[in-house]
């Protein structure tokens, strides 16, 4: 990098140097003023669009507001909504479904993503072209992708079942990836993994490339086996990046709505009904605003708490 400093500045202004501090104060804002001027718009926007609604939502979560009957006076019901939610057994099932989805996708995406990153890091010929190809799925809108996979998964007219049948011999119209209780939960995992393993791959690649070469060279001199090098150099040094990938994917998939809503819309029955879909139904189909506000708060507290603990662990790993 070259220093880009205005060419005339260095020569012409030498004479002013002694008084520059005074001059600066006279001509512009103080550093303190600039800092606040720069940070305030962002904080103000987040307060208006995120925090104010959040506080409003906390208030609503103690009411029985139903937007389809908004002519009714606002009635405060205390903690009733929270009690309803926490004692609702269906909701615990939804949370389990969500947890299973999050865990399966994160595990699969980490394995595939890290594996691909290790391979790509070998720098074989044309590796950057193939990396680009692998990245393509994550550029699309998850909703649009979810929608299109319904065609690909159609038992008779979609190609997916035919490909499976080619390798296994199972007749293509004998199973339905989105229509069967046993298969549907794996279908959403499959599509999510297909879409986001490349993302994990990128983060892992960043981690692998942050390891300086001389460490491997030293290990090579010491005749450490490549197995040993992997466990004592590669993995520990890439660990902060792997943990970052887990954090990002877990948060994203806990919030998952768009892709699954269009692929299975929670079905068949409610086998793929993730908690965001439940929330959407309560809030925007049944219009139970008070109830769904309480549910939203519970979800937020869960993610926020879990992420907080995780970030602390991540920082500890980074400092090692």
């Amino acid at each position, binding site marked *: 990098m070259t220093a880009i400093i*205005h060419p005339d500045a260095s020569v012409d202004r030498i004479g002013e140097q002694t008084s520059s501090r005074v001059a600066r104060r006279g001509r512009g804002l103080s550093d303190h003023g600039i800092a606040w001027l720069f940070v305030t718009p962002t904080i103000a926007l987040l307060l208006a669009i995120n925090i104010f609604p959040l506080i409003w939502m906390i208030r609503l979560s103690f009411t029985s507001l139903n937007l389809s009957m908004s002519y009714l006076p606002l009635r405060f019901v205390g903690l009733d909504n929270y009690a309803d939610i926490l004692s609702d057994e269906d909701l615990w099932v939804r949370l389990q479904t969500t947890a299973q989805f999050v865990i399966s996708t994160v595990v699969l995406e980490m394995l595939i993503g890290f594996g691909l990153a290790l391979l790509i890091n070998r720098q074989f010929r044309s590796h950057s072209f193939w990396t680009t190809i692998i990245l393509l799925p994550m550029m699309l*809108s998850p*909703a649009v992708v979810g929608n299109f996979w319904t065609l690909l998964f159609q038992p008779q007219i979609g190609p997916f079942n035919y490909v499976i049948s080619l390798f296994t011999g199972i007749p293509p119209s004998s199973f339905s990836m989105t229509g069967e209780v046993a298969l549907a939960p794996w279908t959403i995992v499959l599509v999510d993994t297909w879409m986001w393993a490349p993302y994990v791959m990128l983060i892992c690649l960043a981690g692998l*490339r942050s390891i300086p070469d001389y460490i491997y060279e030293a290990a*090579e001199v010491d005749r450490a086996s490549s197995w040993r090098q992997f466990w004592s150099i590669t993995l520990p040094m890439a660990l902060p990046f792997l943990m970052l990938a887990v954090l990002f994917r877990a948060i994203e998939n806990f919030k998952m709505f768009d892709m699954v809503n269009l692929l299975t819309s929670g079905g068949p029955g409610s086998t793929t009904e993730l908690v965001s879909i439940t929330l959407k139904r309560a809030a925007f189909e049944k219009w139970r605003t008070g109830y769904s506000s309480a549910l939203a708060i519970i979800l*937020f507290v869960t993610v926020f708490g879990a992420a907080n603990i995780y970030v602390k662990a991540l920082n500890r790993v980074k400092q090692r």
Partner: protein
Amino acid sequence: MTAAANTTAHSIVEASPRVKTVAGALVIIYAVVAILPLLWIAVTAFKSQSDAIAYPPKVIFQPTLEGYVNLFTVRTRQTPDFIAGLPPATTWYDKLVRKHDMVIAGPSKVVPRFINSLVIGFGSTFLAVLLGTLAAYAFSRFRIPLADDLLFFILSTRMMPPVAVAIPIYLMYRQLNLTDTWTGMILLYTAVNVSLAVWLLKGFIDEIPREYEEAALVDGYTRLQALRKVVLPQAVTGIAATAIFCLIFSWNEYAFAVLLTSGDAQTMPPFIPFIIGEGGQDWPAVAAATTLPIVLFTILLRKHLLRGITFGAVRK
């Protein structure tokens, strides 16, 4: 660029040719399998509607532009007598439509939806990058009280499920008459993107040595001049990468768009799944709409993805 790329061919950490071949083969196999569904979508855009839902699925077919014509037009079915009575079709797309006993009744809503996506996408990206650059610069260069807490707060706004955020936003926007407007959607997407932008850009600006600015300050520049003439030119690639990430998010976002817009300000993602032909979704038209932006994004992104995705955590 990267540490690994700098090593010479003689470096002892360079993989052996055999390892490279195996690694390459495995990656290529994965890439080919992963790309197949996208190829199917791309190909479907050039099928006729009956070929798209043929049983069994067709790999070889007569390509047609019907999907694109259907995407951009609204058509009505007419009796053959009526069509025979019309003046002869003058354009290729009129001819294509009349083969199916239909006439074009007018343009579809895809162009207004596309314009909505452009305005909301670029508007929110511009604002998020502008606000994000200023805030990131301040966090990077000045001592701000509780900076770490503020940064975590900024990031934590991304942890809410969009469906949850949409509830109070919906109520608030109803009061302010912002539902289904460009302004409302731009503000919302800016708020979502700005947290990413601050984190990304802080990483990039942290990497620019302070000495350059300090030299400029000593030379009599004000802080703002130093920012404009010294810091910004060096942060350009980081800003570009951030902008692309924000644009991809705004372009692909579905949950807010489907819950908060219904007509005037609706963007492409909630629109595409509802492109209906006769007897269900018009798959060729859906496929045509799906594949429009992807190539563009990928080409724009290639160089910047790696650094951008890790909040600029990769060092040069």
